[in-house]
Structures are given as structure tokens and as C-alpha cells.
């Protein structure tokens, strides 16, 4: 799997997102162009969570892996950090029926990720947060 390791800082966000987008640009699968736009959103939301919350002193890395399995037509994105334990799947989902006045500010990003991707998996292993996102195409 192609891998990139960068300091978890907002100034590196664009480079980290582009690493993933450039990597699957040349793959062939149904609905690619539409998915690439949504994948930018998925990457941003997942990486920004780590940048903002993983490292209390603000210093630490994000490791990014991705893969596209031609056999299964499946895209996988894996993000690893060594920050505080954080399971995004435990965050309460936003109530989409509430009007703007009553909306909670949190939980939107992970909700977007779950909406776009087919599968979101979280593991805590060896003091690492491992977030694996995948989507299968027709």
C-alpha cells in the first residue's frame, strides 16, 4: 500500500489529501469522477479530526495508507495516529431533522464519512488509533 507520514498539522492537510486523490486518479472504476470529489471530503474530515484532537500538545504524526483492489473494485483508506484514544464511531450522530437554531456543531464530519463510505472501522492497537474506511464500486 502506498504510504505517507506527515506531521498532523493543518498546513499539511492539502498535501495529505492530494496524496490520496492523485493515487487513485489513474484507476478505472464506475463513478470515479463523482467519487473523487466526495473522497476529498472524506479525507479532509478524517484527517482534520486527527489534526485537531489526537495530540494534546499538538505534536505527532498521521500515517496514511490507501489501496484500490482491482479484483474487488474496492478502495481502502487507512489512517493511523498515536494520539489519545478516539473512536469516531462513538460520536453521537447529528439529528438531521433539527433546524439550524438547534443543531449541534459536532459530529458532522464523521457523519459525512459514514454516509459516503460503505464501511468505517476503528481499532485501538499498540497505543494507535487505526481508522479504516472502504468503499466497493459496481
Amino acid at each position: 500500500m502506498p504510504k505517507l507520514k506527515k506531521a498532523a498539522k493543518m498546513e499539511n492537510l492539502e498535501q495529505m489529501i492530494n496524496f490520496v486523490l492523485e493515487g487513485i486518479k489513474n484507476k478505472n472504476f464506475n463513478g470515479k469522477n463523482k467519487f473523487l470529489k466526495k473522497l476529498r471530503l472524506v479525507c479532509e474530515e478524517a484527517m482534520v479530526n486527527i489534526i485537531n484532537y489526537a495530540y494534546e500538545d499538538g505534536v505527532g504524526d498521521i500515517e496514511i495508507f490507501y489501496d484500490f483492489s482491482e479484483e474487488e473494485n474496492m478502495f481502502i483508506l487507512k489512517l493511523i495516529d498515536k494520539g489519545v484514544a478516539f473512536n469516531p464511531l462513538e460520536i453521537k450522530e447529528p439529528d438531521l431533522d433539527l433546524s439550524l437554531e438547534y443543531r449541534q456543531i459536532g459530529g458532522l464530519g464523521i457523519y459525512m464519512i459514514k454516509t459516503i463510505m460503505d464501511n468505517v472501522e476503528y481499532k485501538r492497537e499498540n497505543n494507535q488509533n487505526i481508522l479504516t474506511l472502504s468503499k466497493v464500486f459496481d
Partner: protein
Amino acid sequence: MEAKLEFNIQEKGGIVKITLEGQLDATNANSLLEELKKLTDKNIKEMVFFVKNLEYIASAGVRTLIFSKQKIGKNADIYLIAPQDEVLEVMKMVGLNNFLIIQDEYNE
């Protein structure tokens, strides 16, 4: 680095017009929010976001819209004018499309 977001904010008679161009994401949503916060004490009736040239909005940008209603224009109608498909799709994804006034054009 070239700025990913350009914005312009004008307030007159309780109507705020905000033009957004480029990408509204986690790297720049705060700078927009800081500018909008300056309007907190005004009696805002309408907040009109002109987004024809906004190509991308992430959750940080969505939060700016929510914040606009909650902190700046509690009694204001929030307009989204001429959103591109990608932006509209995000609004639908998070269920904000029913609570914003989404139009192709803004009539003064």
C-alpha cells in the same frame, strides 16, 4: 500559497451579503467566522451567502452556516444563492437544505 477561499462581506440595513469563492474548508473557515462575528451586535434580518463560485464545502464550512444562525442572526433567514451541485449535495447530506432558503438568484 494561493488562497483557497476568497470572501467578501457587506452589511447594510440588517442584510448581510457574503460572497464565497473557492473552497471553504477546515484551513480557512475560522477566518470567515472571525469576520462574521464582528456582526454579532447588529440586528441582522437576512444573511445571504452567494456561493455560485464556491466549489467545495467541508463540515467546517457547514458549521459556519450553523453558527451564522445561532450566534449572529438568531432571527435571520439564511439564504444560499446558486450553489453548485457538490455544495448542494453536502447540504442535503447533513439535512440543512430544508432549513436554508436556497435560490438561483437573490431578489433585493
